[in-house]
Structure formats: C-alpha cells, structure tokens
C-alpha cells in the first residue's frame, strides 16, 4: 500500500504556512507607542478631508499623507499614529523625532547596516529590532560607521544603491521644510486648473517651523485677497501654536477653521467633499486589502463542499464568496471613481483587477457546472487566488503600494482597457488552473485514482446537458475525483489558452502603434509567450502520454510558475519596456 505520509506532510505544510500568515496578519501590528492625550483627542477629520495637489492629482490630505508617511516609515507608519497626525507632528515637532525610529529600510541592506550599528555601540536589542522591522532613527543613521556603510552601498549600483536611495529619499521627505513645501493645499485663486496649487508656506510663511531662522511673513499671493491670506495665516499659526503646546481643543478648532478658509479660496472648483471623504475613508480602511480574510473564510466551506459534497457548505461558501467579491468590487469601484481611470495601471491595481476577473469568471463557469461534480471548484480556485493576491498586498505594502496615482502617459490608451484586462484575466485563470492542478497532484500523491476527463474540459461542460444521462461522466454520483479535478483544470486551462493568446495579439497591436513595433522580444513579452508555449506543450503532451492527468497537472502548475515569474521577477528584477506594469 502506498504510504500517505508525504501527503500528510504536504497538507500539514500548507496548513502551517496559511496558518502562520493568518495569525501573523491578524496579530501583527506596528510597534505602538502609548498615545498621549493630545494625539488621542485632537480632531483631524477636517484636515484629513482637505484637498491637496500632488503631482498631477488632487487628492485628500489623508491619502496624500498616507503615501508620504509610507515613503518615510514603510509599512508600519510612525509609531502607529494616523498618517495625518504623523505628517503634521513630524513637520511641527521634528526635533522630537531625531532619536525615534521613523525611517524604514528594506531587508536587502539591513544586515550590513545592522553590523555597522553594532560597531557603533548601538545596543544589541535595538539592532535586533531593527533587523526585524527595519525601523531606524535619524540619529542612528548618522552614526559615522552607519553613514559610511550606507555611502559604500550607495556606490553599488547593481545591488544596493536603490535601497540606499530609498533611505535618502525618506530622510529628505522627513525634513520639515520638505513636508511644508509639498503641502500644496491652497487652490489657485483664479480657478485655473492648469496652475499648480499653492504651497501653504507661500501663504503663511515659514516661521512656524521654529528652525532658528527668521523667515518673516510670506509675500502676497497673486489673486488671493490680502484679508483672506491674513486670515489663513493666522489660522495656520493657531494650528501650529496649539499643536506645539499640545492643546487639543485649540488645535481642533483652528484646524476646522483653517479647512473652511482653504475651501473658501475657490469654492467653485474645490473638489467635492464627498469624494475627498471617500478617499480618506478608503485609505483608512487600508484599501480593503484585509479582504483576504473574508476570502480565506470562504475557502473553508468551499473546501468542505468540494471534498464532502455538503450542500450547506456549498451554499455558505457561495454567500461568503459573494460577500468577498462585493468588497473586492467595491474596492475596485472606489479606486476607479477616485482616480477617474480604470484601476489596472500599476502593480497593486493589476493584482486586484486580475483576481477580481478570476472570481467573476468563476461565477460564470459555476453557472455552467452547477449540476456537475465540478461545482464549487472554480469558486475555490478563484478564492484562493484572490486570497493569496490580497495577502501579498497586505504583507508587502511597500512593494505593492496602494497609492492612487495618475496613469503613466504611455499607458493612457483604449488598449489599456482591452489588452491589459484580457491578459490579467488569463493570468487569473492560469492561477486558478494551478489550484485545481495542485489538488489533482495532491489527490494522486495520496494514491487517488488516475482517471481523467476524457471528453476534455470545455467539452464536458456542454456534454453535460446532452440528452441521455449516460453521456455525462461528471455527474456527482458517478464522476471520480480524478475526472473532476482534471476536467476543472482543462476548463480553466483552455479558457486561459485562448485569452492569453488573444491578449498577446492585442498587446502586439498596441505595441505596434505605441512603440512602432508589434514585437520586440522584450522580457515581459517573451515570458508571456513562454507561458503560452507551456500550454501548447501541455495540449500536445496530453495527446501522447499515458498518464494524461498527471502531466496536465504538472504542466498547468509549471505554466502558472512561468506566469508568476513574468509578473514578479521580470517586473521587479529585470527591467524592460513593460517595467511600469
């Protein structure tokens, strides 16, 4: 009898990995410092919902501050404080942060920096914490040995310079002058939307920084009435004074008054309050990346439904998938509304949209297969893909940044809607096919039957409704596990085969009129084609080999591996013409 130990080990491994991430995701929080009374009670809502001009976009101050603080302090933010509080406090009380860990370093350079920290006499516990969370203080960075190490790594263009640049950029952004100069919260008084918004410091001056220099009052702002400028200046001065004095009531009042005055500069063209509030709310809800928890909860009844054929579990699974998909759709919809463009033009959005298409596709397919033994498998596959994708977004927020930015000009084309969506939809289907293929391999590893879907995947869907019950081999009462899993893989694989090819052709059409050539052997193109070649091999191998199910599953997983390589390694490590996607 075949040993089942390897299967048990594999099952345990999957459960442990998923369990780790679940526990980690639910329990891991930023190292939080006890909030003082001021931080807890100051009302920042009016500030959060202010509009700010940031590189070609008008966004909510909360959204902007979230992006800035993440660029400085990485995934955890600054001591667990909200981004708006952190931004203002960093600008107004910078000296208090010199010795606080507010700068984030990526893992790639932590070991070298940690060694320099140790040599500088920084306590071992501090160094250990740094290795774990990457947070370091400005004072520690400016230790001569740490600084020398960073300077050394800055010269290594191939390996470390990029990460040192991120540290330099974080230090630059954390400078109060920089924070102040970027705070473009005053709309052009003449309503000209092609003009940049005015930085607050140009209205109220720089004296609030208290940096030891006498800056004097700001000069007159063209188009802004001197009375309004004076009023705004005084209100900002009250904000700064109350903030430094940690007087929450006074600060709250001054912030509310300032927000009102800023709106009154150009009330006609000021962005709608609802939209700004929605943007702030969207980011306060972490761009809904926690939705992976809903998906993982859906996976449990779906698994039970698939394995044990429990109707109750199937229904519960559907309800949970509908809930998760609803949140998923809301997330995409809100991004679309806020950005004013289709949300698939950066990595975060591509991951989100691809898995949304996957789940949408699962709904369609499940309609066809509702009376077959494949029922539930497509929901399961798509939920697992969506769960994994959102876990990546959750656990790698500095890599998959959720900021809403303008689309790159070269991408601003109708083909962004067509080519990109078809390609990422095919990627989602490839991911789902890999899930059913892995289930098949697990089934075979556990000594399961080597049966396969003889009529082919897509064909089997249609044949199910043929007259005469005898020709539907995927009936719940007679289909074997091997047949069901193999058929599911083939359904998904065939769909992705067509869509990937169509997507490649559409991409070539776009490239032809964008770059002047339909095909340039760019790494991204090549690996999309490689994925397709894997599926070409799969289809022909399936014709020829005896153990069709096994080789189909192996090649479906390999195809997914090449697709992921294309999406991750090619995008992040090997640049090419598609480096922005």
């Amino acid at each position, binding site marked *: 009898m075949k040993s089942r130990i390897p299967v048990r080990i594999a099952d345990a491994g999957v459960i442990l990995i998923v369990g780790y991430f679940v526990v980690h995701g639910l329990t891991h929080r930023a190292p939080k410092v006890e909030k003082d009374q001021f931080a807890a009670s100051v009302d920042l809502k009016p500030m959060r919902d202010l509009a700010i001009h940031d590189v070609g976009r008008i966004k909510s101050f909360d959204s902007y501050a979230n992006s800035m603080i993440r660029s400085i302090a990485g995934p955890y933010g600054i001591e667990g404080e909200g981004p708006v509080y952190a931004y203002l406090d960093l600008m107004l009380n910078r000296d208090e942060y010199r010795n606080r860990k507010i700068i984030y370093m990526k893992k790639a350079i932590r070991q070298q920096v940690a060694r320099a920290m140790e040599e500088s006499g920084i306590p071992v516990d501090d160094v250990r914490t740094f290795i774990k969370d990457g947070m370091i203080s400005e004072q520690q960075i400016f230790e001569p040995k740490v600084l020398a190490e960073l300077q050394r790594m800055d010269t290594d263009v191939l390996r470390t310079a990029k990460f040192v640049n991120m540290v330099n950029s974080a230090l630059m952004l954390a400078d109060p002058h920089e924070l102040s100069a970027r705070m473009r919260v005053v709309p052009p008084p003449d309503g000209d939307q092609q003009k940049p918004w005015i930085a607050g410091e140009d209205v109220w001056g720089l004296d609030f920084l208290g940096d030891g220099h006498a800056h004097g009052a700001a000069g007159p702002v063209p188009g802004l009435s001197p009375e309004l400028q004076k009023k705004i200046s005084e209100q900002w001065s009250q904000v700064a004074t109350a903030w430094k004095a940690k007087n929450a009531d006074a600060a709250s009042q001054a912030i509310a008054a300032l927000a009102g005055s800023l709106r009154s500069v150009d009330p006609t063209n000021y962005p709608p309050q609802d939209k700004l509030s929605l943007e702030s709310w969207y980011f306060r809800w972490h761009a809904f990346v926690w939705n992976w928890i809903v998906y993982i909860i859906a996976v449990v009844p779906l698994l039970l439904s698939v394995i044990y054929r429990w109707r109750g579990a199937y229904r519960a699974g559907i309800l949970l998938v509908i809930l998760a998909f609803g949140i998923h759709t809301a997330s995409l919809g809100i991004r679309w509304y806020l950005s004013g463009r289709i949300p698939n033009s950066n990595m975060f959005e591509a991951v989100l949209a691809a898995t949304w298409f996957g789940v949408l596709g699962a709904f369609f397919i499940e309609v066809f297969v509702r009376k077959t033994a494949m029922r539930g498998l497509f929901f399961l596959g798509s939920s697992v893909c969506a769960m994994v994708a959102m876990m990546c977004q959750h656990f790698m927020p500095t890599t998959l940044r959720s900021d809403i930015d303008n689309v790159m000009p070269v991408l601003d084309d109708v083909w962004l809607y067509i080519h990109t969506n078809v390609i990422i939809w095919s990627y989602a289907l490839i991911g789902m096919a890999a899930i059913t293929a892995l289930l098949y391999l697990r089934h075979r590893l556990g000594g399961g039957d080597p049966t396969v879907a003889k009529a082919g995947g897509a064909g089997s869907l249609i044949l199910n409704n043929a007259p005469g019950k005898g020709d539907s081999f995927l009936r719940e009462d007679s289909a074997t596990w091997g047949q069901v899993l193999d058929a599911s893989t083939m359904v998904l694989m065939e769909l992705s085969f067509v869509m990937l090819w*169509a997507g490649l052709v559409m991409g070539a059409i776009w490239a032809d009129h964008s770059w002047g050539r339909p095909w340039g052997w760019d790494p991204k193109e090549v*690996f999309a084609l490689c994925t397709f070649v894997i599926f*070409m091999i799969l289809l022909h191998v399936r014709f020829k080999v005896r153990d069709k199910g096994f080789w189909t599953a192996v090649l479906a997983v390999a195809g997914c591996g090449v697709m992921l390589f294309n999406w991750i390694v090619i995008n992040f490590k090997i640049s090419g013409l598609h480096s922005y996607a």
Partner: protein
Amino acid sequence: MNDSATRPAATHPRRGPLRALLDLFNSVWFGIILMVLIFLYMTVASAGILHPLDWSKPFGTWTRLVVRQRLGLTEMEAFAWWPFTTLLTLFIINMCVVTIRRIRFNALSAGVWAIHTGIVILAGASVYYFSTKMEGDTPVFRRSIVVEVPGAAPERIIVQPGAATNIQSVAGNYRVAIQSINPTWPLLSGEDAGKTACSVNVQVTTPSQSFIRQMLINYPQYTEDIIPGQGRAIKAVGRKLLDEDLKLSFAYEPQNYFYLQDTAALYVRELGSSVWLERPIEHLPHYSNNIASRNEIWQPEGEPPVEPNPLDIAVPPTTEGDPLADYDVRVTGRLHYVESLESRWVAGGAQLNPFLAVDLEYDSGTTEHVEMLALDSNKNTDKDGLTEFRWVNSAEARQDQVASVGNSLDISIPAENVQVTVPVNEFESFQQNPDAPFLPITGSAWTYRIRGMARNEQIGNAGPVTLAVVEFQNGAENFRRFVFENDGQSHDRTADNEVHKPDPRIVTHFRPGPMILFIGGPTANDLIAVVNTPNNQVSLTTGKPVQLGGGLSLRLKAMFTNARIENRPALTPLRFQDPQAGSQRSRIKVEIGKDGSSNSVWLPYHHYPLPDRQYAGNRFFYAPTTVTLPGGKRVELMYSRKRWPLPSAVTLEDFDLKTHVGGFVQGNTQSVRDFVSLLRSYRDGKWSDVYTTSLNKPASDQGWYYFQATWDPGTMAYTGLGVGNRNGVHAQLVGCCIAVLGMIYVFYVKPIIKRRRRQAVWASVKTQEPAEQREAVATAS
C-alpha cells in the same frame, strides 16, 4: 532460452533517409521536444540564468548571468540567431507535416487546421517583418534663427539655450546668443490673448549696444527688444526694435536622417566643416571589452583583468569627399563602460622621476588617495602639506631628512633666557586626552601642554589657517595661546575665554611640517615613512596596510623611480555600471594608417552625430575628437550610430505638452497626459500641412512610422521621434486571428458539433439494445 533464437527474424521494410526524415517530422513527440527547446531558448535568451551571488548563501542576494550579452547579442539578435531560427523552422515544418499527414481535414478538425495555419502565416509574415525591420530614432529641433547683419553673410544658430554666433560685419562685431526659451509664454494682449507661444530670448551685442530681443515663434509681429535694467524698448525709447538693421527670423530646422538602433558608425569631417560623412562599422560587438593589450586601459582594482581580444574591423569610406579616403581606417578595440580618459603615472620613464602613491585609510571607512612626485616642487606634497615625498641619494641624506619631520613649536621666555622646541603631535587633541599632564619648560617655572592643532582649516572668514593651540600654566596663572603659522594672527585666551594679544613674557612660533614624510632612495627598494616624529619610522610594503594610530593607517599602492605619465581610458568598476546605460559609455579605438605610420585614438560614443556643439545643449553628449594626421591634415572623428534617410525631411512645427491638473511637475511624468509633436514633411518642393504624432498615435510617411519617443523637458526645443518600418504586420495579424478563431472552434464549437452528432445518433439508436447503443454513441464521439 533466447526468444530471438526461436522467433523468425522480423522483416522490417528498409527505410530510406528521406522516409526516416519524413517520419521524424511526422512525430508529435518531435514537435513537443522542439517546443520544449524553444521554451528553454527563450527563457535563457531573455532572462539569462539567475543564480545566487554567493553559492554558499542560496537564500541571499541573487544575480543574473545575461547569457545573450556574454554572446554579444542584443535581444533582437538573440532571437534572430541561427539556433533559434533553426528551432522555429524545424517546428513549423513539423507542424505542417503532422497537420497534413495526421489530421483529417473535416469539420471536427477544422479548428486545429486553423490554429496551425494561423501559426504558419504568422511565422511566414514574421520572417518578412524581422528580415526587413529597421528602427531607430532622431531628434527634430523646433527652429533655428537666421541672423542677418548688413555687410555680412547670413548665419544660422539653433534654438537651444547657450547657442551663439559672432558675425564680423563692416560695422563691427555682432554677437547673438540664445539666452532662454519659454515654451509656454502667455500672450496677454491683442487678438491672441489667452494663447501661449514659444518665446525665445536672444542676447544681442552690437558694436554699439547690448539688449535682449524677445521673439515668439509664429508671432513675428510681437518681436521686441528689452533693454537690461530699463525694460521694454517701446517704453524706454519709444520703438520696439533698437537695431532695425539686425534681422533675426525663425527658420525650420529640417531633419533628414534617423539613427538605427544597435548599430555603429564612424563619422568623419575635415576640421572646420559642419557636415559629417558616415562610415558604417559592421559587426562591432555590443557588450564586450576588446583590447590588444592590458596596457591600453586602466582597469578597476579587484576586478578580473580584461583579457586581450582585439578587433580588426575595416571601416571603408562610403561617400565621396571623405577626408580619409586615402587612409586605412580600422576599429581595433572597444570598451563597453568607460569612466573617462585618465592620465596616470606608470613605471618605465627614461629619467629619474620618483613617484609615490599611497592610500590613507581612516577607521571611519573613508580612504584618501595621495600621489606625489619627489622631484617636482609643485607635486611633492599632498593633503595641504600633511604628506611629503622626498628622494635622497644616500643613507646619510636620509637621516638628515628624518629629522625634519613633524610640527614643532618654538617656545622662548626672554626673561629667563629659555628657548625650547617641542613637537606638536597632529594625532592628539585635547578631546582625546583631556587629562594630559602639563610638561615642564626646562629652566622656567612655566609648564605647557598641547591642546591640538589644525591644518589648513576654514575658521571664520579668515581663509584656511594652520595653527597649534598650547596651554601655559604657571602656578595659578593659566591661559591658552592660539599660535598661528602666521605669527600676526596669534592670540591668547584666558580661562574665561577672553581674547588678548600674545603675552610678551612667552614668545612662540609654530612651524608646521609634514605629518607623514616619505623618504625614498637611494635605491628603488628604499622607502620609509616617518610619522610625526623622527623616532616613529615605518617601512612600507606594497599593498600592506600599516597602522599609524589615531584611527589612521597607510597603504602603499605604488612607487616608481622612473615614472612617466600615460593617458588611457579608465574602465568603470562593475558595481558602478548602470545596466540601463547600453552603449552610452562605450568607446572604440580607431586606427588611421597610411604608408606604414598610423594614429590611434579612443572615441567616445555619441547618441547622435550632431553638426556642432550648439545642437547638444544640456541634453546630448558632444565631444568630437580631432586628429592631426602626418602632413598636418586635421580631421574630426565621432563614434555614433548608422543613419538612414527619412522618406522626406521632417521639421517640428510645435510641441504640445498636455498635463494633468496643476501642470507639469519637473521630473515627474505622472503629471503629463500626453506629448504631442506637430510635424511637417518636405514633399514635392514644399512643406506639408501639419500632422501630429503623440503617445499611442503614430504618424506615417511613405511606409515609415513616426512615434513619440522622447522630448526635451526643459525647453521643449526638440522632440525625439522613433522611426520604424513594419512590413508584414497585417499578415501577422491575419495569422494571429486565424489561430485564435481556431482555438475558439476547437474548445467551444467542436463540442457542440459533437453533441449534435451524438443527439442524432441517440435519436437513431433509441430502439437498439443498450450494448449497441453504447457502441453507436462511442462511434459518434
């Protein structure tokens, strides 16, 4: 018992080689193997081979071996290389044979036929496409300005900041220079109010006056002069133009060529000419370093040496009037990533010229490189006198030199007739040793201690100064003296930090000397370093660090007795090389020979062979190399890319930057919505109507496509057009569409046909026995 012994021998019909070949191509397995090989080839050719940087740490940093670059192939070349084209050819043949011989041509198989036919059409069209593909790019400038001065020939200057010309006329010298360009100058008055135009400010210096002429492209009526300090001429003197005789007018700047990607060419012209003549360089490697000898270049330390692997590519003339037509021009070397041409000292000179190179390494991790020439009074010291190199001809002379090392402070107390000289140790400071004891001044009640010294430090606004700080004590009396190298600046400070003139009871004089004195000679093996005091002598071995204390160590890099200087290209260390740089930092070595003598020169890469420096502005590299040939003939050479004529000359009428809300944010393309070039072509003896090209919307001219590639973010003085042909793309598209239709047919139409057939069979066999039914249905499937 052997089976074969009992069975009659099998009688296989003998297969001829043609039949065997046909059988091979008739095999699906052969096709699968070919697909696997194609997959592997594409993977390695595109991504290379990923591997850990350090194999002992498999989870550490990974790196990538770019195989195609090792083979000297670009992406396009790697996928046009014979191994890959052979694989594709075999695969297409295999697919055709299998399709024709094994797949029936009927309704059920129509999908597979369509897929295979589509792929064959795609492959055929791709052969045509890639074999005729030409692509490149070119800058198209917005305008030049024609300068007309009475009594002189008209001249043109390109509209680029900094471009200038001097014109000598009968009235005197005129200088006209482009001062600034504002591509979005708002028109505030007249019927054009509210529009924007490209404004060019031209700095004009005539024999009698200087002014700025402001010109607006396409709005000559708004041209006016501005007098520095007085404003618009119309307001200052009552007329718009100060010098009516000076005529400045805009002219198109046609572009006739584009420059082909991944190619190389040598451009030559006689010195003084503005027209480059092209000599294509065929088969120049793209990535490698090719040298005849390691002595040709400076290699970075710690990197594997470049192995000699010279080139010998003849570069014959292709156009008439080539100034080097009588010379043999060859490319004999190429370097991929060069920092610069550097002059360094090497051994082997004819005369005694002792040279020393050392590194001063600080504990903080910083290193200072020091080079000195003992016999050159301008170069025998470094680091502001901190180090000095002397050469001696005898052991006795060396001892004399040893005594002169270090800083010393002369202290004299006239009242007590005391005079002493004490060393000032540069390594020590009060901060390091705050409890240092006071030392006696023999013959006096005064004691002293050195608090520190500064060498060439910027203190206040007084410029770099050198001084020692010494503390004197006598009983309860205590003060510090700042003893400057220049005695006039010396002063005392009391414990309360009050400043006084130097106390006349104690006279001091500070004599800074080298902190580290290197003494070489009399032989090449004799080198010592005397550090701070005569007693502290160290001998040096090349490459071995010596600790000097105070967080400083010394490493001898090289010493040559007969040094001579050499100028060679210095390779950039690998870790500094930008992988995205392409050929931008490459150089080629060109040898120009005639009658047994030759000149050789390393030429840097230029993205475009621009006519002169003024076109380069701040965006393009421009450094042609002048070579003086035997006989005194002087030519200019430039290494760039091959050029190809555009179907018709193209000029830039205007450039429109479309931005998101808030306008363009310098350095951030996310504030940009689109780049639009408004172009004209010169056809049938006149300029065409304006046509545009922008992102994702190319323009075409006689089969060539122009697409928006780059732009000039500062002044929008030019646009960068991508240029390419696209023969066969429609056939490629037809092939792709046939294939995709075939896929849909195979996966989603064929099962319907099969179902209908099955339904028909079911209808006809309803009355049969179950076993017969099953057989009939199986047949129908």
